[in-house]
């Protein structure tokens, strides 16, 4: 039981997908200007990533491995995730058109969000079972969402700050992301404690 907890906590804090694994920076920088959109993007990614991890595990374990087709892993994972993203997009377009417009190009980009492919592949290399895969995917996505929301909160405040002109916008956002990453280094070693 505690090992599951450690998987989730480890994925959220210690090995935060953005701050420690440095994955998924594209949406992290792109969709963090406003809190609401950040939360929306986080929710969409959580949905896709959890489903993606489950589906890719199923495909890997019951389709690819029995048939010695491991060399198709990357290809089939991408196809699966792309389909799930499309599905999510259709649902969001129906239920929240504004969120759809705001997520804009980022929603299809979840497909190429390296985190969304990276986490299922990590699952394989870490030899997670089905439940662990799901939890690891979910934890990573929650970590991504957390990073996105915290970052959006700071950026909303920074918008009104007297930042020197050459550092406005992306420059100061990158510096902030770096300092946040530094702060998350404080969690280092927590997952190794037994």
């Amino acid at each position, binding site marked *: 039981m505690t090992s599951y907890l450690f998987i989730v906590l480890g994925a959220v804090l210690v090995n935060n997908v953005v701050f420690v694994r440095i994955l998924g920076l594209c949406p992290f920088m792109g969709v963090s200007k406003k809190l609401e959109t950040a939360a929306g993007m986080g929710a969409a990614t959580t949905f896709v990533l959890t489903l993606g991890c489950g589906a890719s595990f199923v495909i890997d374990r019951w389709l690819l491995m029995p048939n010695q087709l491991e060399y198709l892993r990357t290809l089939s994972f991408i196809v699966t995730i792309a389909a799930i993203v499309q599905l999510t997009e259709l649902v969001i377009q129906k239920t929240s058109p504004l969120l759809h417009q705001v997520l804009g190009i980022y929603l299809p980009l979840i497909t190429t969000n390296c985190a969304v492919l990276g986490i299922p592949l990590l699952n394989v290399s870490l030899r997670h079972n089905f439940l662990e895969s799901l939890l690891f995917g979910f934890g990573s996505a929650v970590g991504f969402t957390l990073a996105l929301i915290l970052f959006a909160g700071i950026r909303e405040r920074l918008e009104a700050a007297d*930042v*020197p002109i050459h550092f406005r916008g992306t420059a100061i956002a990158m510096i902030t992301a770096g*300092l946040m990453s530094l*702060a998350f280094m*404080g969690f280092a070693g927590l997952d190794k*404690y037994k």
Partner: protein
Amino acid sequence: MNNSPYLLQPASVQSVMLRVLIALLPGIAAYVWFFGAGILVQIGLASIAALAAEALMLALRGKPLQLFLGDGSALVTAWLIALSFPSIAPWWLTVSATLLAIIVAKHLYGGLGQNPFNPAMVAFALMIVAYPQLMSQWPAAGATDFAMQWQAIFGSRMIDAITMATPLDAVRTALHAAHANTTVAGVLAANPAIGGIGGKGWEWVAAGHLAGGLWLLRQRIITWHMPLAFLAGLCLVAGLFNLIDGARFAAPLFHLFSGGAMLGAFFIVTDPVSGATTPRGKLIFAAGVALLTWIIRSFGAYPDGIAFAVLLMNIAVPLIDMYTQPPVFGHKDGEAR
């Protein structure tokens, strides 16, 4: 001509900062008494570096030098860096950390009042990640030989005779080795640096900071929320785990009087710029710092967790503030967000 109000209370940023500096003096005095005058060199180094960096950035940004240099905020950052760094750290460590704090963590965000991260803690965290060895060489109590400290600071070699790991570090390292039979009590008993409740000498530095902090409280520069929530939070979580497994978790008093806990409680957590500002937010912020500090101290990879804990909570400040807005006049029952 200005508009109303035409009356102003006599108060200034300068006087606030000055009083913070004064409040740091008792802790510094105890430091000098037990660990020698090396700390004064560090304070001097950090101050010069901070003022130089501040002047440079003000000039680059076209702000009035005299007015902003005189506000004292750079000095506060410098002193906090000096006090949180080992007093026998090489000079370039302190200086580069201070430059980083003032230039990157403060002025790139717009200078005084606009930085989301505590500059002193950014400096500390950066340096402990980059130079973990150097940041763990602390002077031993009673090793007050100024010449040796001078050499440690400006010379190129570390002098083993005067360095020693802090009690916090000792406890953490020993427990991480995870021999089944190591206990906190055993580690502490075996360590010559241990004093009455915290580290030998360190407990008096902490007491000095406590005295200075109480004076700040009396001066109404800081409010009770942050120090109380931080100290109580640390006590609570440390006490709880000490009760559950006294062999593996140190007692609350040990936590309070070790490392930067007192300095943190009254001078670092209370930084108004990067901390939460609403009454409830202050409580949450400081309690969060306490919890994270304890977690990192007990399980993490670094000797003291305050810097990381403060930075982590700094990240959450905009959200904490947003969701703890006190109800506005007339909107007290529900309705207010």
